[in-house]
């Protein structure tokens, strides 16, 4: 297990050493969203009865930060070491593809939790946010960041240039996040878009996560958890297969 823990530790240090960029910056930019929406919309929009819009928004923003950073962590670590060539140090070692996978995923979860936790703690200083079922929030945060970490591993291995990775991030991850109900309840959408939204796995992450705060959700939390877990397992298995096959890593 020493090999696995070493790689995990290294992956952790990789983002921790540049924490300004990898933790602090996303916390600040997420809080800017909060500030703007609070200022513009708080008095005008109510999604759940007796829940101020800003309070409704906070869990969504936290989960959005978790999703984006978990993905960014695994994918940028993978593509950086691939392009700079230092991935050979891992590839030459006896580390198994499973150990490599779990080290990358756990580091992604760690960064997701740090950024999400940071946003939550700062928001807590200014707003009174209920947290009715903390275990549910934790479950969704872990499953969600694991899923995005696994997706990041695949994207990082697949992409040959930073450009391709940016495309993956901007044309797949970003739209799926923005259209997953971070800023609204899907019940407010026209029925066609509501139906379409159900094919977005990120919807279930956000909705389930929010359930932990308010005890209310658009979709049954059990259903959401089952879907997020199923996606997480499927993407993880694919990522493990990709690592095992040596695709774009061992030529």
């Amino acid at each position, binding site marked *: 297990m*020493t090999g696995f823990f070493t*790689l995990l530790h*290294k992956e952790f240090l990789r983002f921790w050493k540049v924490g300004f960029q990898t933790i602090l910056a996303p916390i600040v930019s997420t809080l800017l969203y909060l500030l703007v929406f609070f200022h513009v919309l708080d008095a005008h929009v109510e999604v759940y009865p007796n829940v101020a819009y800003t309070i409704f928004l906070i869990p969504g923003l936290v989960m959005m930060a978790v999703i984006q950073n978990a993905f960014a962590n695994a994918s940028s670590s993978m593509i950086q070491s691939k392009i700079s060539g230092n991935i050979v*140090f891992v590839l*030459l070692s006896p580390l198994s593809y499973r150990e490599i996978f779990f080290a990358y995923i756990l580091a992604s979860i760690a960064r997701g939790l740090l950024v999400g936790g940071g946003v939550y703690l700062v928001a807590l200083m200014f707003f009174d946010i209920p947290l009715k079922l903390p275990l549910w929030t934790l479950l969704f945060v872990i499953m969600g960041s694991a899923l995005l970490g696994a997706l990041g591993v695949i994207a990082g291995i697949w992409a040959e240039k930073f450009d391709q990775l940016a495309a993956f991030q901007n044309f797949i991850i970003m739209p799926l996040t923005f259209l997953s109900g971070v800023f609204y309840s899907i019940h407010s959408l026209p029925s066609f878009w509501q139906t379409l939204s159900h094919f977005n796995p990120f919807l279930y992450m956000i909705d389930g996560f929010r359930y932990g705060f308010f005890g209310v959700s658009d979709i049954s939390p059990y259903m959401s958890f089952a879907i997020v877990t199923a996606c997480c397992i499927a993407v993880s298995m694919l990522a493990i297969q990709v690592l095992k096959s*040596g695709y774009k890593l*061992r030529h």
Partner: protein
Amino acid sequence: MQPAIEVTRVNKKFGTIRALDDINLKIETGEFFALLGPNGAGKTTLISIIAGLALADGGTVSIMGHDVMTQYPDARRNLGVVPQELVFDPFFSVRETLTIQSGYYGIKNNHLWIDEIIQRLGLDDKADNNMRTLSGGMKRRVLVAQSLVHKPPVIILDEPTAGVDVELRQTLWDFIQQLNKAGHTIVLTTHYLQEAEALCNRVAMLKQGEIVALDSMQNLIGSMTTGYTLRLKLSVDYLPTELERIQISYHNGLHDLKLQSCNQVESILQTLRQADIQVLDMQLLQPDLEEVFVKIMRESRVESV
């Protein structure tokens, strides 16, 4: 005794280019082995397949008896590789890099050995510097150190002295020779044939993905070359007609003559004296690996055409 490296019928294609064609190679434990060949001959591809960095299309490779595909953890634990590319992780210092690398091999508390390799490779001053701040030569030393953290019985160095100063070359070879004496098997690729000749006991030459020569250094040089080369700088730019038939070449004012034995020198000097030609400088050249290399590469070109 089991071989250190055993390559059996290995093939590799990149698209339509055949990078390795049915390679068979057995390197015994304790050997100091040279893998030579021009650029693009397939040396690095072969090393990559041995190291598991590339996957062969066919054939098997084992390291100390462990198959590199089916028993990769054991195979890799027995192998240290110095890659040709100057790669490094910019997030860490030299010591951190080496500690992390030890960890990958499952070794905790490796600082005694890490200190020793740092010292042996002359990295003491740089041990706590970030990798980014190191010069190319220093980065090369760290790559060598990284390949040794787990004390592998088999060590492969892919052009470790490319673009490296004389001092490092000497420190490096002293250290590697000691490791070889201590029982480590060393495989080396280099374009400096003198280095290979001085260090290695056996040679394989690759050309266009095929092994075109495989023998002990002694046999190879002995069987491929005969006689000596006499290099002369004369007071005139021509040779007496008697000597023209044994001339190999004339360039940069130097006449190279082919001798079958050393005692021909006397009669050559006599001939020159009679023709009233002065000898300004003279060298008797032993047959060397470079001569063999050039000859083999030239011959095998004819065959393949």
